[in-house]
């Protein structure tokens, strides 16, 4: 090994040691800084992704159209394109109207946010949203939709925040089951096997005997999540050695999330 390599190795070791010495706060600050730096790229990427999806949908309908009628003329194409554009606008209007309605009737103070990126790693379930400290978002704020709980914020930079999804094993939520006195802790599964991830509702009593279709809500214990947020519906229940465990289908379809709300308090 030559001298340059040894010097490089020493510098590398020093930098590595420096990073390994970071505590949680320093890591969070560093992470927020990196996310803030890349925020414009994420926004551009998110916009591009939406455009590509839109183009793909357009091409698909053209394919179907060609199969249906090979002699489609230019006027027809123009009309269909206009229709498609109007449908997109209608969808957007409906979506926003829906969101606005929820915001108005909700008992919480809500800040609307858009999903910018989805999880890029195998073992952690997170998304990033286009709101940050500038919008008064802080760490550990619940994130919801009109359908139910989505997760909570973890790292917050000025204009972008990371949301830990309820399907992550590290996102633990105190919950209660409707029509019973049962209380437990909901957490995601470490590995998602099926198409839709399930949630584990642990630490129930062995006698809980929950039935499929029963609904679980946040109980408000712990302070992060307010009570009454819909978590999911019971799919199955089993008795384990020390407790009972139920599998829940999440209230929110997290794979198709577009808009969310960050809960900043009660009205």
């Amino acid at each position, binding site marked *: 090994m030559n001298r340059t390599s040894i010097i490089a190795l020493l510098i590398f070791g020093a930098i590595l040691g420096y990073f390994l010495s970071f505590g949680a706060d320093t*890591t969070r600050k560093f992470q927020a800084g990196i996310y803030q730096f890349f925020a414009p790229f994420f926004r551009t990427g998110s916009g591009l992704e939406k455009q590509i999806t839109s183009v793909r949908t357009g091409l698909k309908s053209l394919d179907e159209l060609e199969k249906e009628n090979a002699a489609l003329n230019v006027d027809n194409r123009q009309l269909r394109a206009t229709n498609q554009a109007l449908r997109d606008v209608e969808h957007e209007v409906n979506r926003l109207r829906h969101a606005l309605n929820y915001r108005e009737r909700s008992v919480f103070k809500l800040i609307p946010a858009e999903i910018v990126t989805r999880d*890029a790693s*195998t073992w*952690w379930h997170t998304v990033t949203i286009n709101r940050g400290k500038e919008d008064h978002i802080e760490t550990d704020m619940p994130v919801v939709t009109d359908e139910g709980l989505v997760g909570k914020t973890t790292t917050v930079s000025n204009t972008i925040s990371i949301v830990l999804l309820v399907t992550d094993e590290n996102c633990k939520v105190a919950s209660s089951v409707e029509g019973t006195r049962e209380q437990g802790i909901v957490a995601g599964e470490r590995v998602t096997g099926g198409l839709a991830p399930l949630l584990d509702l642990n630490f129930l009593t062995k006698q809980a005997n929950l039935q499929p279709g029963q609904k679980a809500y946040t109980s408000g214990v712990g302070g992060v999540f307010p009570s009454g947020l819909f978590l999911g519906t019971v799919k199955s229940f089993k008795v384990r050695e020390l407790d009972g465990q139920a599998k829940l289908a999440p209230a929110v379809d997290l794979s198709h999330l577009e808009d969310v709300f960050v809960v900043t308090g009660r009205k």
Partner: protein
Amino acid sequence: MIFFAVLVVLVVIAQIAEFFIPPLEWMYHAHIYIAPVLVFYGAVALPFPLMLGLALIAGILLDALTVQVIGSRVEISLGWSILLYAVLAGIMHGLRPLFIRGRWEVHSVLTGICTSAIILAQYLMITFRRGTFLFTKEVWWQIGGPGLIAMLMAPVVFWVLNWIARVTRYPYLPERSFE
């Protein structure tokens, strides 16, 4: 140095692009990782100090963009990915003479293995932290799948990077072209 800068830019772009590539549902939600393929190409194409530099940048990016900080707890400390990249890239670097002679096949296979090794190491670390050991079919697919994809991607990526290396007049090119 121009080629090193190009590799760094490509690693950054790849790391951002990974956020927009959905996991493969038919492969038990296995993710597609592009950045490791670039780093492991760098490991065989670059001299040792620059290889370390690339591993450092890629590791910082991977950690900063994916690590989870919950309350006062960091799931995997910042820096572990740097170490992982450096060790695995170091192993690949040991096979550099073979690459210089134009043998890229071994490195393609190794790229896949090393990509899976990174994900396996992450999984072992979170498993030790969270407590329960869980090795199901899904886990193995989520570890092995990205490696398999990286292995398939590697020849194409290597070919493109080799072309970029020629364009930027990088002096340490393989003797035999990728044919």
